[in-house]
């Protein structure tokens, strides 16, 4: 494709307004705080792995170790730069990847929401090695994100026959929670987590996150305790904090949200929750954070217009709905997001947007999905019940 095809007339749309460049007077003026924390052992370990790759760029084991560490760090911080660093380390094998690299290539594709490319890589690996646990697990997770819990359950079941079967149980429980068997998922995971120290730490953290979300679906009294357990196992995890602060916001506990997220403004999804909480409390910082969030949306939109990916649709829809923005625009964003991913949170946004836009028919895809999967979720049920009856 010629680069001329990428020429996009922006003409002011989405070109973010910047302050004028300036030359600071004070050499001590801090311009940027780096995400790494001084003396952080995980950061030192990353630096060590990176140095090993720099020393021997053709060493597959070194590259895999570094790439995996960067991806894990990128996930916890929701920082896409980390995925780029991982990809750079895998460059010698990127075009013609051995299975280990191919699984990572799928993970990176999944992280930029290119689920087709990810599944193609995973299926290719599984065709060669049906017992590859990571490929099977990644495939199950993508199927869950795409709102296909039955397929995910099949993939999870296949994990039992894999090289590493430890993920089979939490995987099946996660699929069950989306397929109308949330009580069963809670029972299995709660039992599994009675001795979390016996589990792989990452597996324990994931299981606890799924447990807390399943409990929230059922509005169980233990929900808060489960979130607490998950936060203890995965402190600072961006996804988990998003789910937890949503739960707090629904219960009017905006003050706690501000306390949890005040330092997490680098993550757009968490900045959204922070801005919503501050807005609700009428805090002075609300305006600045709302402006920052909207600037991020504008820059993301400018990128998408120029050919980048659209990863902000769900966030923008939520923000519009919460701040009294144009409901028709929110609905369009929610619909486009629903085309790509279908988790309960995506269904919530679509239902809320359809109601706000007074277009109950637009909620149909989410209602059909709820019916098809049989998901039990008090929040989804409440939103569905609030929709006006459609004339048929």
């Amino acid at each position, binding site marked *: 494709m010629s680069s001329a095809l990428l020429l996009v007339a922006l*003409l002011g749309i989405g070109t973010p307004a910047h302050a004028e460049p300036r030359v600071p007077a004070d050499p001590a003026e801090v311009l940027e705080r780096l995400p790494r924390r001084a003396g952080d052992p995980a950061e030192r370990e990353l630096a060590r792995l990176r140095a090993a790759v720099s020393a021997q760029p053709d060493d597959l084991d070194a590259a895999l170790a570094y790439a995996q560490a960067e991806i894990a760090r990128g996930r916890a911080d929701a920082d896409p730069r980390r995925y780029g660093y991982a990809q750079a380390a895998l460059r010698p094998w990127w075009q013609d990847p051995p299975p280990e690299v191919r699984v990572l290539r799928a993970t990176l594709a999944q992280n930029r929401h290119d689920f087709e490319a990810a599944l193609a890589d995973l299926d290719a690996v599984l065709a060669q090695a049906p017992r590859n646990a990571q490929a099977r697990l990644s495939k199950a997770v993508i199927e869950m994100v795409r709102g296909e819990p039955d397929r995910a359950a099949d993939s999870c079941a296949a994990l039992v026959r894999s090289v590493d079967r430890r993920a089979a149980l939490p995987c099946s429980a996660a699929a069950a929670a989306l397929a109308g068997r949330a009580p069963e998922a809670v029972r299995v995971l709660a039992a599994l987590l009675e001795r979390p120290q016996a589990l792989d730490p990452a597996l324990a953290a994931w299981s606890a996150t799924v447990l807390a979300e399943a409990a929230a679906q059922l509005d169980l009294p233990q929900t808060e305790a489960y979130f607490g357990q998950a936060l203890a196992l995965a402190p600072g995890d961006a996804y988990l904090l998003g789910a937890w602060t949503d739960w707090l916001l629904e219960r009017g506990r905006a003050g706690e949200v501000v306390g949890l997220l005040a330092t997490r403004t680098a993550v757009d999804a968490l900045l959204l929750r922070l801005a919503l909480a501050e807005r609700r409390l009428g805090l002075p910082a609300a305006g600045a954070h709302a402006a920052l969030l909207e600037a991020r949306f504008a820059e993301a939109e400018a990128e998408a217009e120029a050919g980048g990916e659209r990863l902000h649709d769900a966030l923008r829809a939520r923000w519009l709905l919460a701040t009294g923005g144009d409901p028709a625009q929110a609905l369009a964003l929610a619909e486009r997001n629903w085309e790509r991913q279908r988790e309960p949170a995506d269904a919530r946004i679509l239902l809320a947007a359809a109601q706000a836009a007074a277009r109950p028919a637009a909620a149909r895809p989410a209602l059909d999905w709820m019916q098809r999967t049989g998901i039990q979720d008090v929040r989804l049920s409440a939103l569905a019940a609030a929709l006006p009856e459609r004339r048929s």
Partner: protein
Amino acid sequence: MNALLRTALLLIALLPAASLPAHAHKPSDAYLTLSGAGYAALRWDIALRDIDYALGLDANDDGAIDWGELRARAGDLRAWAAARLEVRAASDAVCTLAAPAGGPELAVEQHSDGGYAVLNYAIVCPGGVAVQRLDYRLLFDLDPTHRGLLRLVGAGGAQGSVVLSAAHALYELPAAPPGALAALVEYWREGVWHIWAGFDHILFLTALLLPAVLRREHGRWHATGRFRDAFVEVAGIVTAFTLAHSLTLALAALGFVNPPSRLVESAIAATVVIAALNNLYPLVPTRRWTLAFALGLIHGFGFAGVLGDLGLPQTALLPALAGFNLGVETGQLVIVCAFLPLAWGLRTTSLYRRAILAGGSVAVVAIASVWLLQRSLNLDFGLGL
């Protein structure tokens, strides 16, 4: 433990990655703006996080980058960046990134996702020619998902944005947007050409002008006695026609009205028929400038249609419009200058009144009637008219 098993174990750390709601930080982007004559001024905003990852800025290792740390590395930074943007002229000669003509070499700015270094360069191509193509490769060795968002800013404002990525690192600059003067000259030429190539406008004007060297008394044509009277008559008609078509041309070209082109073309043919018929059966024998004005309104829409086909440069809309209109007037003036002395010389002859005025008008009515039928009914008589 074999490699496959180890991969499986470690990757469990990645599990809920997919379910992360939207994303998070912005990915790594740099912003490039090319502006000025020949796009020779480059402003390049690079995230401090990216510079730190590539060059290591945090000298005192306190997790923060301050202005002192950045400024100390200004030379390294400028050389590092400049080595990762290859700029060439049309001749393929390599251009250099030099110190900027104005403004600081290094400044800072805050984008929504953090602090950025702002590097200013002057792009110097051998022989002072314009920039033609870019090969962008900042950070691709360290982060293949990095992108450069390139903006071109011409005389009339932003031209558009281009994403430079590892897969699309090469970029050919479009021809420099026309400046106001260039647009004026180019569209002036188009205007002249259109009047001469557009036979209907010539016939219309000629039909209106034919009786200008005569005056109508008692139902008959007489030669005008004084040249001044003929001149005033011609000037009045031409001025009225010009004012009228300029008005509708501007209204249509700027998008205020947009009549369908087939209707306009048919109506123009009708105006030619009317103008010529008025010579044979004068309904408006005197003050024919009013006729020129009323019918000229329709011709303006025709000019606008031509201009629409040419495409107006959005960066130089008004100069182009003015140039085109001036071109139309120029073409028209040339016709008048050729016509007036000839008609003045012949006005007393019966050849002029019989053959030229009467015969010419009949011929014009005939030709324009064919046009009218063709254009209104969408027919082709194969007459080549």
